[in-house]
């Protein structure tokens, strides 16, 4: 119950959004700052106009004082009467030393106490111009001065018009600020509604994916704004996840596929041992073969696993600057005896100073795999050349050229797929993962793997194969 009551008090969703809160905040700040500025202008204007009034009053009193000093009370009285009749902007009251009214256009001093300089601010009533009943209270300010002979003079000034103008201005200022705030709230609501509608669409996509509809994607507006960019990144992320899942599934399938056959074979062999347990020599031989089978299985397992991990991009860590010349020399040193053993001529041709950004272990593995292949398929009397160089474009290129049968053009793309071994090579050892592993390593390094024809056919051999890895040019 309390929860329902609580939620009843919550704002509608679009009013709870960040966009709305931000707009509200900026509208509030705008209203506040405009209010402060206008208030300062107001204070300055009021001050100036009141000072002007006070200066005029002081000036008028000086006139009266001058006449009083020259011609006494009579001269001052004449002046005041003249001015009162003249209908100027001033209010006058002239009193004798006993504070009896002598002349002026008001009957009594304002009933408000004066300050030390004799200044007063007061409200007086003035009969309407058309002679109707009742008067209106008007704001005025004035000054009372006691003259040398004991007479008092009061001069006041009607500031009702100024006061009214000022208070109208003040009202306008307040109204404008309130209006700015209101408009801010309305535009905030409108903006946030639009914004949250688009975010809702992205959230809905995320919820759909969580619910298992993995093919769902966030809608795009293709305007290139930040929400569209968010959708784009969101979708790209989902594509990547889907791709990885697909790959993991494929990896699982191919592990199952590739391990089933040797496992079945192993099982058969072990059953055979059980049956023909009599002859110890035959049993030992069968067990040795079984162990060899298991080793082969383990090798396949490792190869499939590292291929799956490479393809899933698990090993994309910081690469380091590698001495490619040294790396190739090491691998060459590992393979040179094998080549010699198989009656192959082997050469390593790489100038000093080659380098690239990469993972030592992976690149050594790629080169070793390519060399494995070359050694495996090149018939006796052939040659294998490992070459490293910088291309004209500054890319580090590693190539292995052999004089084996090569790979026909139409099969070149296929040999990079997992487990593909061309028919002719079925009898040779290996699990057919070598080149796909090289391909995956190339991908991790952003390198190109190219297969070309070798040096050409001679005496029924060839045309050979040239496999090249071209790494992107490093900086510095």
């Amino acid at each position, binding site marked *: 119950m309390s929860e329902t009551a609580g939620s009843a008090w919550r704002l509608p969703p679009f009013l709870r959004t960040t966009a709305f809160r931000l707009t509200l905040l900026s509208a509030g700040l705008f209203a506040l700052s405009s209010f402060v500025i206008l208030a300062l202008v107001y204070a300055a204007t009021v001050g100036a106009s009141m000072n002007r009034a006070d200066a005029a009053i002081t000036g008028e009193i000086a006139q009266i004082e001058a006449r009083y000093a020259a011609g006494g009370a009579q001269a001052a009285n004449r002046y005041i009467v003249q001015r009162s009749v003249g209908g100027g902007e001033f209010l006058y009251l002239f009193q004798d030393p006993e504070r009896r009214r002598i002349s002026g256009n008001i009957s009594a001093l304002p009933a408000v106490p004066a300050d030390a300089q004799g200044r007063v601010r007061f409200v007086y009533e003035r009969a309407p111009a058309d002679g109707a009943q009742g008067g209106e209270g008007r704001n005025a300010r004035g000054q009372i001065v006691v003259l040398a002979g004991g007479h008092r003079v009061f001069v006041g000034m009607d500031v009702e018009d100024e006061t009214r103008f000022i208070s109208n201005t003040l009202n306008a200022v307040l109204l404008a600020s309130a209006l700015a705030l209101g408009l801010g709230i309305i535009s905030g609501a409108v903006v946030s509604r639009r914004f949250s509608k688009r975010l809702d669409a992205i959230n809905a996509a995320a919820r759909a994916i969580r619910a298992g509809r993995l093919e769902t994607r966030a809608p795009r507006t293709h305007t290139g704004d930040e929400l569209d960019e968010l959708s784009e990144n969101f979708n790209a992320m989902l594509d990547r996840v889907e791709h990885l899942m697909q790959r993991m599934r494929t990896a699982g399938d191919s592990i199952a596929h590739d391990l089933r056959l040797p496992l079945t074979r192993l099982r058969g062999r072990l059953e055979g041992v059980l049956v023909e347990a009599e002859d110890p020599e035959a049993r030992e031989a069968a067990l*040795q073969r079984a*162990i*060899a089978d*298991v*080793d082969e299985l*383990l*090798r396949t*397992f*490792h*190869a499939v*696993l*590292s291929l799956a*991990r490479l393809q899933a991009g*698990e*090993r994309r*860590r910081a690469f380091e600057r590698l001495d490619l010349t040294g790396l190739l020399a*090491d691998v060459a*040193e*590992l*393979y040179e*005896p*094998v080549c010699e*053993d198989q009656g192959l001529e082997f050469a390593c041709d790489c100038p000093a100073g080659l380098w690239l950004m990469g*993972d030592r*272990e992976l690149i*050594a*593995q790629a080169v*070793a*795999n390519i060399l*494995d292949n070359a*050694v*495996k398929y090149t018939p006796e009397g052939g040659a294998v050349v490992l070459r490293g160089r910088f291309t004209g474009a500054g890319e580090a290129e590693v190539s292995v050229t052999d004089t084996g049968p090569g790979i026909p053009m139409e099969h070149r793309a296929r040999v990079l797929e997992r487990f593909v071994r061309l028919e002719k090579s079925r009898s040779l*050892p*290996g*699990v057919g993962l*070598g080149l796909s592993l090289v391909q995956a390593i190339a991908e991790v390094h952003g390198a190109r793997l190219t297969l070309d024809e070798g040096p050409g056919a001679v005496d029924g051999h060839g045309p050979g194969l040239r496999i090249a890895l071209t790494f992107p040019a490093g900086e510095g």
Partner: protein
Amino acid sequence: MRVLIVEDDREVARNIAKMLRECGHVADTAHDGEDGLELARDGAFDVLIVDRMMPRRDGLSMIAALREDGDKTPVLILSALGEVDDRVEGLKAGGDDYLVKPYAPSELIARVDALARRRNPEAVKTRLEVGDLEMDLLARTVRRGGEVLLLQPREFRLLEFLMRNAGQVVTRTMLLEKVWDYHFDPQTNVIDVHISRLRAKIDKPFATAMLHTVRGAGYRLQP
């Protein structure tokens, strides 16, 4: 030799223990990191075999705790995590060797033997001797029966590793890791070829062979 196997899969632990006993070792087992740590602290073991992922306390933290106590017993880490980074992490935590699952039993035995030998450090030695084969690590010379053998630098390192592990089986993978510092698995028999080259130099001119092939496992140098 006393070996402690800390592995949460009881059957795997039992199998390893059985294999080690068959090779004449004493083997104890523990099935989680806490028990393993307790046992390792109490008993004087020559080698610990520690699985990486275990309940209650994982293998790496167990090794780190031991090393903190100043315990220097050699540790072989077993793990399904086989990338170079995982390996580095394992060795940083105080492991001495790292074996990725699944592995061949002979590989495990060979590595345990190699670790046990390391306990009595020969690193300070400047001369290695196996039968009538002598290696001077300072002068970088090798003699057999007083006759100087000329070895390539890599052959020298290969022989050095074999001599340090004389009498024990060393696997092809161990050689590739320790002599060449590669952790991948070449499809062709590169190691065999290097061994046969070495054999041609240290065995062929002499009456008795010292470098033996152990079928299904690897090689052993023995007088």
